[in-house]
């Protein structure tokens, strides 16, 4: 089971996920370098992903679509900006139409994936920065997500405590 740490930054619409895998760096990189493996992990079983083009090099593109249970296709593409095998992958993730043309009206996101070798395997840090709230919402509205009540309970706890927060020490992150 990977160890997972997550950070939200509500001001910059950034989500950072840290995971640790019990596999060597090169093996984890292969998940992204092999389109057949990438499509296994990109979408959930209910929205299987199919990778079409796959050029993992700066200036290259990875195009994919996800198929909903009703058979509806959601297309997307990556435009690679930096590829540093096997430690770093940077790309812009866009929504696309069925011809894999970027839908300019839909906000995208910038992603930076970093991988480093650890004593037990590999630590991966995934950072996604959304262009706008709308972009964040669109990703959610693809229906790919199971709802979570945990987050609501978490904020209830946060809000219940915040009445007693010492202002002098309050950090912006308390609401983030």
């Amino acid at each position, binding site marked *: *089971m*990977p160890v*997972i740490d*997550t950070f*939200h930054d*509500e*001001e910059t*619409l950034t*989500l950072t*996920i840290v*995971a640790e*895998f*019990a*596999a060597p760096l090169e*093996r*984890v990189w292969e*998940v992204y370098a092999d389109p057949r*493996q990438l499509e*296994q*992990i*990109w979408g*959930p079983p209910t929205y299987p992903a199919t990778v079409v083009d796959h050029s993992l090099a700066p200036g290259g593109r990875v195009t994919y679509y996800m198929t909903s249970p009703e058979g509806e296709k959601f297309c997307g593409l990556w435009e690679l900006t930096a590829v540093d095998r096997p430690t770093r992958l940077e790309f812009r993730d866009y929504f696309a139409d069925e011809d894999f043309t970027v839908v300019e009206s839909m906000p995208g996101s910038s992603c930076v994936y970093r991988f480093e070798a650890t004593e037990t395997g590999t630590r*991966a840090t*995934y950072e*996604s920065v959304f262009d*706008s*709230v*709308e972009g*964040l*919402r669109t*990703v*959610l*509205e693809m229906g*790919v*997500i*199971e*709802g*979570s009540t*945990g*987050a*609501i309970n*978490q*904020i*209830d706890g946060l*809000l*219940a405590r*915040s*009445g007693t*927060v010492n*202002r002098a020490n*309050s950090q*912006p992150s*308390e*609401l983030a």
Partner: protein
Amino acid sequence: MKAVLDDEVDALFQALADRTRRDIVRRVTGEGLSVSDLAAGYDMSFAAVQKHVAVLERAGLVTKRRVGKRQIAHAEVGPLRTIRSMLAELEDQWVERVQRIDDLLAGDEQAGS
């Protein structure tokens, strides 16, 4: 989630993008506070604090009630939950993806590759 209009969400994020405004929300959560009491806690004019409260009101994060001569500000938790749940849902999506990577890597051992 879909019921929330984009404009509302944008207003929320803009309202919370300011440190003083986040602090105000924290201070008026639970027990309300009068705007003058709020203003006493910051190195800025009463008018400036009033403006911050107005931005929070427009975003739906704070409501004001008149009690006698005083205006008492209260935090509204609903909009905060919206933002949190958006990021949290996305996080869930990622947690699942990480789990799938883990399963894929674990499959190597079983396949003996």
